[in-house]
């Protein structure tokens, strides 16, 4: 039975405040990302890897999950995801600037998240290693009889690592509460998806006996719905779900990449126009959650936060050199 008086997000169980907050987080991620890119260009930082074009799906997924309760295993482009589950822009900026106060002590490349308090599981560079970890976390949830899911993301290129397949099979056999979300941004560095992925990623789920769903990653509500349903499935013991969220990597792979070597400006421009944040904004206008004035103030707030975070992180000190010796093992005091 349809409920014609409710807006689409309300039908999905999202309040107006929630969708506004989603919009704010998408913007925050975007503005953080643009700033981090500029900072890198200015020479203040060595490296940035961008999530522009992927924020919509990340925020939407996060809102379908439970903060500080479910476990999150992001990959390196998931700024919007980690912001949505509890990290602050200041924390992201501290990581960007590699400062001592960064939760990882300035040790990791930017985009390598980890924050126990927020259930953001520590990640590394070798792609896809997090997939079996998510399966293990889901297994632990079942063993402890806790009502939690593990949510893990990875790129479409990374889906070709053996660990993804082994994780899928393991989770499939034990019907574990894990959600696999592939952020298919159509490139793995220079390699387009069709030269990287034989068949379709979404179709791989069937080979492991669980559902695969392909969604438009630029459509926040579609992603939200798919993740919500996957979470419900997981919690009622029906096992994992694979979600393939289709999107497009707007920027080059990283600040070290020149994407004009392997794609055209036209192609990029075309995809810029499909921007999920912009269409979500339009949707919010249409259903009256957002108006020009509110939008302006949201934008101002976001910019202020980004500015303050950048200023703070820029000034913060680097980690102590000797701190390099700490935390190899449990007891402190060096290697």
């Amino acid at each position, binding site marked *: 039975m349809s409920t014609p008086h409710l807006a689409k997000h309300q039908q999905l169980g999202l309040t107006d405040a929630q969708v506004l907050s989603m919009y704010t987080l998408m913007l925050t991620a975007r503005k953080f990302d643009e700033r981090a890119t500029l900072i890198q260009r200015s020479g203040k930082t060595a490296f940035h890897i961008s999530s522009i074009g992927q924020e919509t799906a990340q925020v939407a997924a996060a809102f379908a999950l439970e903060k500080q309760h479910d476990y999150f295993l992001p990959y390196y482009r998931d700024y919007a995801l980690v912001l949505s589950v509890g990290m602050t822009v200041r924390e992201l900026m501290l990581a960007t600037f590699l400062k001592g106060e960064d939760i990882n002590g300035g040790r990791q490349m930017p985009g390598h998240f980890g924050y126990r308090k927020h259930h953001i599981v520590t990640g590394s560079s070798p792609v896809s290693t997090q997939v079996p970890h998510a399966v293990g976390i889901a297994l632990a949830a079942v063993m402890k009889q806790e009502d939690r899911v593990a949510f893990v993301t990875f790129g479409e290129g990374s889906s070709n690592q053996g660990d993804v397949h082994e994780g899928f099979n393991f989770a499939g056999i034990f019907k574990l509460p894990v959600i696999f979300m592939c952020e298919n941004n159509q490139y793995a560095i220079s390699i387009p998806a069709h030269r990287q992925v034989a068949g379709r990623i979404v179709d791989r789920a069937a080979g492991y006996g669980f559902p695969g769903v392909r969604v438009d990653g630029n459509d926040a509500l579609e992603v939200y719905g798919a993740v919500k349903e996957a979470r419900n499935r997981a919690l009622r013991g029906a096992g994992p779900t694979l979600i393939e969220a289709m999107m497009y990597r707007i920027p080059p792979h990283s600040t070290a990449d020149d994407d004009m070597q392997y794609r055209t400006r036209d192609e990029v421009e075309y995809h810029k126009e499909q921007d999920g944040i912009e269409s979500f904004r339009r949707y919010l206008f249409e259903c009256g959650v957002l108006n020009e004035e509110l939008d302006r103030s949201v934008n101002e707030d976001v910019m202020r936060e980004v500015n303050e975070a950048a200023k703070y992180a820029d000034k913060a000190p680097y980690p102590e050199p000797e701190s390099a010796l700490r935390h190899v093992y*449990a007891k402190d005091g060096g290697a």
Partner: protein
Amino acid sequence: MAILTYLEAIRAGMSEEMQRDEGVFVLGEDVGKGGVLNATKGMRDRFGERRVLDTPLSESAIVGVAIGAAMVGMRPIAEIQFADFIFPATNQIISEAAKIRYRSNNDWFCPIVIRVPYGATGGGGLYHSQCPESVFFGTPGLKIVAPSTAYDAKGLLKASVRDDDPVLYFEHKKCYLYISDDVPDEDYTVPIGKAAVKREGDDITVIAYGMAVHLALKAAEQLEKEGISVHVLDLRTLHPLDQSAIFEATAKTGRILIVHEDNKTGGIGAEIAAIIAEHLLYQLDAPILRFCPPDVPAVGMAPTLEKFFLPNVDTLKEAMRRLAEM
């Protein structure tokens, strides 16, 4: 106190830890039926199939899943069916387990135990006999133990489970039934990082681990009749090495022979020789010798090949005599 085989001691260690702590569980290929080498025999009946978990045939997932579970509070013991099959899990071990605490600046940690049955037992051939410990040895963030007695097997197993960092537990398959000794019923641990003097002696020092310790002890006993007095140090832990015990044992005789079943080049013996040559050079009365199998990929299956490859008491005695006379 009871006399247990090395294999029973490992099983007792696992079972007692599972009894003590709900978070401890075993996972691996065929562990439910007891494992192909019987290490987990009877444990599924006692603890249920959830806690003695048969996994798919995927070593990378076994270790990766264990890591995930460990990060959220479990204490998994992952069994690799044979050491030779640990390599598909290398990325999870070296890139992940070893670096989780360090990269997260102590925010996350990874208390897993990976049990690795290694070494030749006779008729195992190239891929059921390997000693891959040197592959993981140079990786800070990992701990590596390799007991030689039933007592140590149980005590180190328990210490490994309770350790807050990843431990590779190398159990020598030849010790499983061949080695039995007194094992207390009470709870005890053998500290990680401590070697043990197995025999006092004055002429030469043998440093070994795993099965090689027993070869060394037998050879030492026989050489005593020839008037050669042998000091034997059992490393027990390979990473971190017990430097002070190594230095003491070195100082005792000034003549060092390192014995292991892993091939010579790049083995753990190299590091032991190196730290001695760095710190105790002037206490040496002879070159530092290593007695290990030749640098070939692994032991051949035919009995003639295997016999040629493996150290035995006679060939070891020869090496020890040579050192004593140097």
